[in-house]
């Protein structure tokens, strides 16, 4: 893809951007123009720390940075190769550059003490297991006073070494995972085992089989622990496991999309956590995950940090805008690995769980699982017993019982909703660290989801009519490469709109414009859509059906009127100079807001009926979230002008085109 200047391109006025030509001699692994530009930009930003503070070679390069700030980072490469350690530099062109820059910054922060952090020593220290424990202490003061501690820190170990990405030694899971695995398996087998024991009357065979099973589980846990190893390489993570059938999974670190740390109650009692590494596979949509169950909590945190940082370095983005360098040593936001806390959800928000339809239905889900469990373990025996009981008890008593049960369940619905909602969202915090937003939640199973900020293209505010009555709204991120996978992109649980928007403003930047209403003709179309089908059903019911279907369909038709009006009222689109926002829906209304730069295309579609009233659906194409967000029934002319306003260079060339 080198020689492409003159290809008889269709458009005569097209000006290829100059940075596209920087890449011919950069190896293909990072041959995107962005890589050629970004490190240079990083050099421009990192010039500010006073470079004369440190005699360290990496830091001495810093004065060059201002003069070469406009050029691609390759000009730094010779400096990097002069440095004492040079592992990993040949095939990772952007890595030495980025590491060297961060080295310069760190040295200036550590004010003169950095010469104590000589690279080899630091690297040795970083290989000791204690490194995990040292990650917590990352204050400026700590870094200055306790140089040894800083050097044992993985970061401390990394900064002085100009080539940062050193393969780590192979590691094992936490020994405590030997307990977690078998106990978790045992838990799912508990009911069958108990049932077997009770029905089998505790005879020696059943007891023996149960004992053997438990021993087998324990042995299995031990073997899993012994045979599972993982290794963070320069540019990949390797997970090996299996005794007989050995498997080995290699995840290139550039492909890592996110690292999630989850811990169930059991994990937390034992002080371990599950680390799940999500990676993009070659084809779109497919993912290739790595799972480590379980490692020490400190090790989990360290892994998350290391993997994400290496990914940043490998993709050439570990420069000034990644707060893993900026926030942690600078002492802002507490200076610990807590990062900046954007929001900690107050207890009162859990009450909003009663507004969520999904959680209102939990009692039924619980009942269903209960029945399922009984069915699975006791099987026909329980069914027969139930049928006998129904047959034997008298009719009026049964009806009373059923009615009472239903009433209790209905009354308990909101209570259950709030309780289960609180359990899943307990202690919800949204914080920012290492250039990512981290959402953590859960009472028993604690779950933390890391969303890289660079991949967040926008946000979505969703509510249902119940929530709208209370002015509540939920917040989700629109993230690249996550698909529409709902659970992971939740940034905040249901909360009051004002506060949620304030959080958006702090964490992502808020849409400040207003939404343009759609033409009146859209109202007619919405009403036709919501009233039409039930009205048709009424006609059918009047012609053929019994009386109650007429009543039912008539009710639906009448209910369709406010639904249609509300759908029309929620329609809107707008642009505030930075972000595009589109809103639609009634029962589940959502307003999607994406950055202007995330818009990767426009699609208008128009049916015959829309054409008669001059309307069209405008879809904003986004390479994130649901893939596209549609402004339904906008005026065609106005929507074209709107698109031209947002992305002039995409739309303008075609505006002269005669559109019907």
């Amino acid at each position, binding site marked *: 893809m080198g020689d492409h200047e003159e*290809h*008889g391109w269709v458009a005569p006025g097209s000006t290829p951007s100059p940075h596209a030509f920087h890449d011919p001699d950069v190896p293909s692994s990072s041959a995107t123009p962005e890589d050629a530009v970004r490190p240079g930009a990083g050099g421009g930003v990192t010039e500010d720390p006073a470079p004369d503070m440190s005699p360290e070679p990496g830091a001495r390069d810093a004065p060059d940075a201002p003069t070469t700030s406009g050029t691609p980072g390759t000009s730094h490469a010779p400096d990097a190769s002069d440095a004492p350690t040079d592992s990993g530099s040949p095939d990772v062109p952007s890595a030495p550059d980025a590491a060297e820059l961060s080295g310069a910054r760190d040295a200036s922060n550590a004010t003169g003490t950095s010469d104590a952090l000589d690279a080899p020593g630091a690297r040795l220290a970083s290989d000791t297991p204690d490194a995990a424990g040292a990650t917590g202490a990352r204050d400026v003061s700590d870094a200055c006073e306790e140089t040894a501690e800083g050097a044992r820190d993985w970061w401390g170990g990394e900064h002085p070494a100009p080539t940062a990405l050193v393969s780590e030694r192979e590691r094992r899971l936490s020994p405590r995972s030997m307990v977690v695995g078998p106990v978790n398996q045992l838990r799912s087998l508990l009911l069958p085992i108990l049932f077997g024991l009770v029905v089998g009357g505790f005879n020696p065979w059943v007891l023996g089989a149960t004992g053997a099973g438990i021993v087998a589980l324990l042995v299995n846990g031990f073997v899993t622990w012994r045979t599972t190893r993982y290794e963070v390489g320069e540019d990949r993570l390797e997970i090996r496991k299996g005794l007989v059938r050995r498997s080995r999974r290699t995840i290139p670190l550039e492909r890592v999309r996110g690292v999630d740390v989850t811990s169930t109650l059991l994990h937390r009692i034992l002080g371990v956590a599950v680390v799940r590494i999500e990676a993009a596979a070659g084809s779109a949509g497919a993912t290739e995950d790595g799972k480590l169950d379980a490692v020490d909590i400190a090790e989990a945190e360290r892994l998350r940090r290391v993997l994400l940082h290496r990914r940043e370095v490998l993709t050439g983005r570990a420069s000034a805008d990644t707060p893993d360098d900026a926030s942690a040593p600078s002492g802002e936001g507490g200076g610990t690995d807590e990062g900046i806390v954007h929001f900690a959800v107050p207890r009162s928000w859990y009450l909003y769980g009663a507004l969520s339809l999904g959680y209102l239905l939990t009692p039924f889900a619980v009942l269903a699982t209960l029945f399922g469990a009984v069915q699975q373990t006791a099987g026909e025996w329980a069914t027969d017993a139930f049928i006998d009981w129904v047959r034997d008890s008298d009719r009026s008593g049964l009806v009373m019982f059923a009615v009472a049960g239903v009433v209790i369940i209905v009354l308990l619905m909101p209570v259950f909703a709030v309780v289960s909602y609180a359990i899943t969202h307990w202690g919800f915090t949204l914080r920012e660290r290492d250039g990512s937003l981290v959402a953590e939640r859960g009472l028993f199973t604690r779950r933390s989801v890391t969303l890289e900020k660079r991949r967040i293209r926008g946000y979505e505010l969703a509510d249902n009519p119940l929530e709208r009555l209370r002015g509540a709204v939920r917040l989700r991120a629109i993230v690249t490469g996550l698909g529409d996978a709902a659970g992971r992109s939740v940034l905040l649980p249901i909360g009051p709109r004002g506060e949620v928007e304030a959080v958006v403003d702090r964490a992502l930047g808020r849409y400040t414009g207003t939404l343009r209403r759609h033409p009146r003709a859209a109202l007619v179309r919405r009403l036709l859509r919501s009233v039409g089908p039930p009205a048709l059903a009424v006609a059918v019911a009047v012609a053929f059906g019994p009386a109650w279907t007429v009543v039912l369909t008539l009710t639906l038709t009448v209910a369709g009127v406010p639904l249609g009006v509300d759908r029309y009222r929620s329609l809107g689109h707008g642009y505030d100079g930075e972000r595009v926002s589109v809103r639609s829906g009634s029962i589940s209304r959502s307003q999607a807001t994406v950055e202007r730069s995330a818009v990767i295309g426009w699609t*208008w579609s128009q049916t015959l009926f829309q054409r008669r009233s001059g309307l069209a659906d405008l*879809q904003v194409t986004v*390479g994130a979230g649901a893939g596209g967000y549609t402004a339904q029934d906008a005026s065609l002319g106005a929507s074209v002008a709107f698109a031209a306003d947002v992305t002039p260079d*995409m739309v303008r060339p*075609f505006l002269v085109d005669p559109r019907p």
Partner: protein
Amino acid sequence: MSGRAVGVWTVRLLMGGVFVTLMLSAAAWAVTSLGWGWPSPWVREYAPFVPLVYGTYALARAAIVPSWRYRVHRWEIAEDVIYTRAGWVSRTWQLVPVNRLQTVDHTQGWLERLFGVATLEVQTASYAGSSTIEGLDAEEARGLSEELAVRAGALRDDAT
């Protein structure tokens, strides 16, 4: 867009129409002649008309739709943006900037090979942002796909 696309569309519609008409005829024959008891008399009476009506509709469609569609379908590339217009009764306009392209597919079915046309499909990071240009001249499509790929490589940023 190549005028031969009209041929492809016509043949395709005709084949579809003939297939469905044959199926309907078979069903109608089964209903009327096999002496099944369950269809009501009026179904048996009107069954032969169904394939007849559908056949006429399919014929009319094959005659009208391709040329109409040919008149609507347009594509244009200017200043590194692909602009397509498609449809016949319902229409779609789509803008896809070249620097957001991820893959460019050039496909040619047997019918298209017969007529010497090809389909070009450009895909972006969003499934919603994928665009197809049907009925291009085969040579032109090949050149265009290569050109687009090269151009996309040159302009490429993160493409999301």
